[in-house]
């Protein structure tokens, strides 16, 4: 792996800049995380951050909505913005020479958005339409609803919002969210690509330097939904979602946990794919992954299968989840390591992937883990360390949700 050139700088107002200079590419990308995610939606107002994300680029600084959009398009910026749980994220990628011109436009969006009151209804309608579309897509809905049932609120609530809550929001709710939650403290800007650190630091200092620090807004917690549940939906397939506890990214045991879930679901030779799809032909789509918040994490497991075969699918998956504790083979771990190595090397081909990764590292760890460091941690895993992890964090206390025409037997 090539030596990476990563530098960080913290501004007086709390904003952290992380820059990875990559000499061999033509592009540059950024990922700006503002600590104004959906967990700060007030109780009964889930979706405030989501509507704000829709409204925030409708004019900023001296530019109206169309002028702003044209300015970003003319820089060739491939961009997205959206509410996350803890942070609202703004990301973009373009030719490296354009990045210094793009950042001031994001300064306007984050510090001086117009949030036009007469466009609130349009933004709200856009979010409502997209929530309704999710209702028609049980494959998407299962994850939103599973999270509600395995994480306490506000962490389990959908970042996109809840339909009834969004319908009751006002323009003032959304503006209040902007005024209290948009702050430089705990904001992170990751930049990766063919860029010079000093130049980016100076640009960012000019653009975001006078962003004023504010106290962290409060958020309300509430218990999660039922651990076993079924949602009726007229569909050909039944969606199955299963969750159980895992360790977060910052845990020393994280890579062992990652390896455990990779044995289950990394690649087509993994256990779930082999046992459920290849040997029994029970489904087309099946996977499990480790989903990490800052202090908490779950294994989230998914399968979609026709209703008459759903019970057998669920039962087969449960057997595999529990069987992990009986042992894993050296070959299984070796394959996980090979896949990890390859994906680490290929990350260096994408400035967008690197910008997102360094920003997330800072959020979770308060430092950047180089690809070499990650590679060494993965190399150091043994069958015993992975098994220790599985025994310390066994597959049990499941949250199980199904969506489809009929409920299933959910004996744990």
């Amino acid at each position, binding site marked *: 792996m090539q030596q990476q050139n990563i530098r960080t700088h913290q501004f007086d107002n709390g904003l952290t800049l992380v820059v990875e200079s990559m000499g061999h590419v033509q592009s540059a990308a950024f990922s700006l995380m503002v600590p104004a995610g959906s967990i700060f939606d007030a109780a009964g107002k889930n979706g405030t951050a989501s509507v704000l994300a829709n409204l925030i680029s409708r004019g900023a600084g001296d530019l109206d909505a169309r002028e702003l959009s044209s300015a970003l*398009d003319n820089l060739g910026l491939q*961009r997205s913005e959206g509410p996350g749980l803890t942070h609202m994220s703004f990301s973009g990628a373009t030719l490296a020479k354009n990045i210094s011109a793009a950042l001031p436009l994001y300064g306007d969006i984050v510090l001086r958005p117009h949030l036009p009151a007469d466009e609130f209804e349009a933004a709200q*309608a856009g979010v409502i339409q997209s929530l309704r579309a999710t209702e028609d897509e049980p494959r998407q809905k299962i994850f939103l609803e599973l999270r509600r049932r395995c994480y306490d609120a506000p962490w389990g609530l959908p970042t996109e919002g809840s339909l009834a809550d969004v319908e009751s929001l006002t323009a003032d709710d959304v503006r209040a969210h902007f005024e209290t939650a948009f702050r430089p403290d705990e904001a992170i800007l990751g930049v990766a690509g063919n860029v010079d650190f000093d130049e980016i630091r100076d640009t960012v200092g000019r653009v975001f330097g006078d962003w004023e620090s504010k106290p962290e807004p409060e958020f309300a917690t509430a218990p999660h939904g039922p651990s076993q549940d079924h949602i009726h939906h007229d569909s050909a*397939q039944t969606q199955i979602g299963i969750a159980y506890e895992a360790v977060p990214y910052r845990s020393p045991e994280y890579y062992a946990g990652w390896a455990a879930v990779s044995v289950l679901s990394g690649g087509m030779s993994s256990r779930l794919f082999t046992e459920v799809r290849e040997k029994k032909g029970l489904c087309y789509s099946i996977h499990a992954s480790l989903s990490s918040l800052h202090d908490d994490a779950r294994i989230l497991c998914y399968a979609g299968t*026709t209703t008459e075969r759903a019970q057998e699918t669920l039962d087969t998956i449960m057997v595999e989840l529990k069987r992990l504790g009986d042992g894993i083979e050296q070959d299984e771990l070796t394959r996980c390591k090979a896949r990890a190595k390859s994906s680490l090397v*290929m990350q260096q081909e994408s400035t967008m992937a690197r910008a997102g990764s360094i920003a997330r590292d800072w959020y979770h760890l308060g430092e950047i883990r180089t690809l070499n460091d990650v590679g060494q941690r993965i190399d150091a895993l043994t069958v015993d360390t992975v098994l220790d992890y599985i025994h310390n964090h066994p597959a049990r206390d499941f949250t199980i949700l199904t969506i489809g025409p009929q409920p299933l037997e959910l004996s744990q």
Partner: protein
Amino acid sequence: MKFHEATLDNGLTIVAELNPQAHSMAAGFWVRAGSRDETTGVSGVSHFLEHMAFKGNEKYSADDVNRIFDEIGANYNASTSEEVTLYYAAVLPEYAEQTIELLSTLIRPTLRQDDFDMEKKVILEEISMYEDQPGFSAYEKSMSAHFAGHPLGQSILGSAESIGALTSEQMGQYHTEHYQAGNITLAVAGNADWDELRRLADKYCAAWPAGKWDRPTTEAQPTGSTDYVTRESNQQQHLMQLSPAPAAANPLRFAAELLSVIVGDDSGSRLYWELVDPGLVEAAELGYNEYDGSGTYLTYLSCDPKSAAENIERIAAIYDDVNKNGVTDVEVEQSRNKVASRVVLRSERPMGRLSSLGSNWVYRQEHQTVEDDLKILESLSAKSIRELLEAYPLGQMTTVGIGPLEAPTASE
């Protein structure tokens, strides 16, 4: 970046765009076989065969194929369209031989009966999965309506009935006819050695049967129709509309690509400002699809059923205006900047280059560098769009709706 091309005695073509600086190598076999090449008795066979490819040959079992791909950390998969079945992998450069050997294995599978029976269940699950996705159902039904009586209207997945009745003998016959070496192109992008690739192609592909299968490519002459499939439990109305556009070999295709960005990109386009920005719809997009001999403009609309008719009218008004008055130089310039940036960003990964390298060769027997693409883009103007619109005006010829609506209702 260096381009190479060679043809084996049996007719297999190898094209490569090599870059010794790249971190990875991406390789793919492009087989000129898809749903348009199927006779009605074997509807869905191309796609089912793509699945069977992973079941191995005399040397490798299905487990072996999945295991070895994972052992080398490959990022691999396959896809089937109306015209091409593609088998691909992105790997670290040191695994070039294993990758070419395994991908070659996929091209000539044994089609064992027990594997065939098991995989049939997976295909039926995949059909059910897509049936539950309104957007996909609308796409498939609109293709079938628009190209009624033309091979491009044939379903990629097939139906539960056609898959249920399909035999492994029929699949074997289809394979013999369509997987002849003259129908196959091996494309490689990224970090690899040309002489080594030649050697590997000789070693693993030279024994494949020679020959070529030619498809009829008469331009379709659709006449248009309107069909609504009622699903009362859906929240949103999903609509797909098709109209004729330039074919893959038509030089007007570049203008068509740009026009689809100007009019129907997911942000900053005419459809975006008129329908998405005001919150009237969840999505309204225009795409351009090219095929051998034919092409389509594809309009996708997802919105509240109550306003579907009005939204279709709004789109009609936009298309009328574009057809009459063309587009502005400012729009052309802005969309060119967007597309240029996309081209460069995609090219930074060998996997991104592979798709452009392969399709340029399979459809047009030509090699286009990133610089060539950018030069063509630079040459496009409002006048090029005018020429395109004279030959292929935007339209809403064929409509398929999926959702609560029973039939088009007139707006107030």
